[in-house]
């Protein structure tokens, strides 16, 4: 099991993973589940030479309930998750709540908005964001003098 986690510092910036505080052991202050709760999906953000790859876990969503928007440099993912019945108020075990997933990532002008492509399969949303041309590595032609 890869237990790589990143910490949640509440400021919106990326903090490096902390080996001393695995996310599993962090207290969650959320009380009980209420209808209409929204959740932040877990994400991976990977950079290659040509693109950013954002992968989000949105289990329970269907492809027609997914909305990916890019506006003013801000990418926002929304995935609707239909309410489902858990057979009564008493759970023998409850480790997650069911609700829509929402998360945003600011890319600024680092991406080419026209080339953004998203795909969804088996509860995973994958967004490809091509880098803006100015950020891609380029070959410089050296002419003989």
């Amino acid at each position, binding site marked *: 099991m890869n237990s*790589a986690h990143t910490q949640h510092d509440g400021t919106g910036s990326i903090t490096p993973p902390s080996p001393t505080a695995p996310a599993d052991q962090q207290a969650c202050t*959320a009380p009980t589940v209420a209808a209409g709760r929204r959740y932040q999906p877990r994400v991976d953000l990977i950079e290659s030479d040509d693109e950013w790859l954002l992968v989000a876990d949105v289990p329970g969503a269907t492809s027609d309930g997914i909305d990916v928007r890019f506006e003013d440099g801000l990418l926002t993912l929304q995935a609707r998750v239909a309410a489902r019945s858990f057979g009564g108020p008493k759970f023998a075990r409850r480790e*997650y709540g069911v609700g829509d997933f929402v*998360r945003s990532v600011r890319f600024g002008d680092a991406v080419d908005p026209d080339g953004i492509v998203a795909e969804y399969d088996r509860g995973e949303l994958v967004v490809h964001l091509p880098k803006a041309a100015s950020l*891609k590595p*380029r070959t*410089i032609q050296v002419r003989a003098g």
Partner: protein
Amino acid sequence: MLLPTNRPGFGFPRNLPSLFDQMLETLPRWGAGLDGDQPTGFPAINAWGDEDNLHIEAEVPGVGIEDLQISVLGDELTIEGTRPERELQGAREHRRERRVGSFRRVLSLPVDVDADRIEATLENGVLSLLLPHAEAARPRAIEVRAN
């Protein structure tokens, strides 16, 4: 000649992009139990029961039916499998929150179940199990005969 122009410190802001975790009053999914006292492994599980069945649901995004094994032995249910990792050559990882690799969770069942009649469905990354109570575990009405 190749001249990389996107090296760190070479005009490209390395703190991009940033994740807006605090917005919209959303709740993080960091793996802690919603009740605070049930920290979870992978996958996270919800379970409940009714008169005839136990219901167990697990979030297994990205896992195919071929990567999943479910077994019942005695009063223990085991859910195990592998979640494939997405590999990109030469890529730099900025954020890794999703859990990948092999996983295994064992749950103690509160009643005997009929292992032959367990139904499992996997849809959109959610595994749903229906475990019928074993005959012996069912409540039954005892007829009281008048003398």
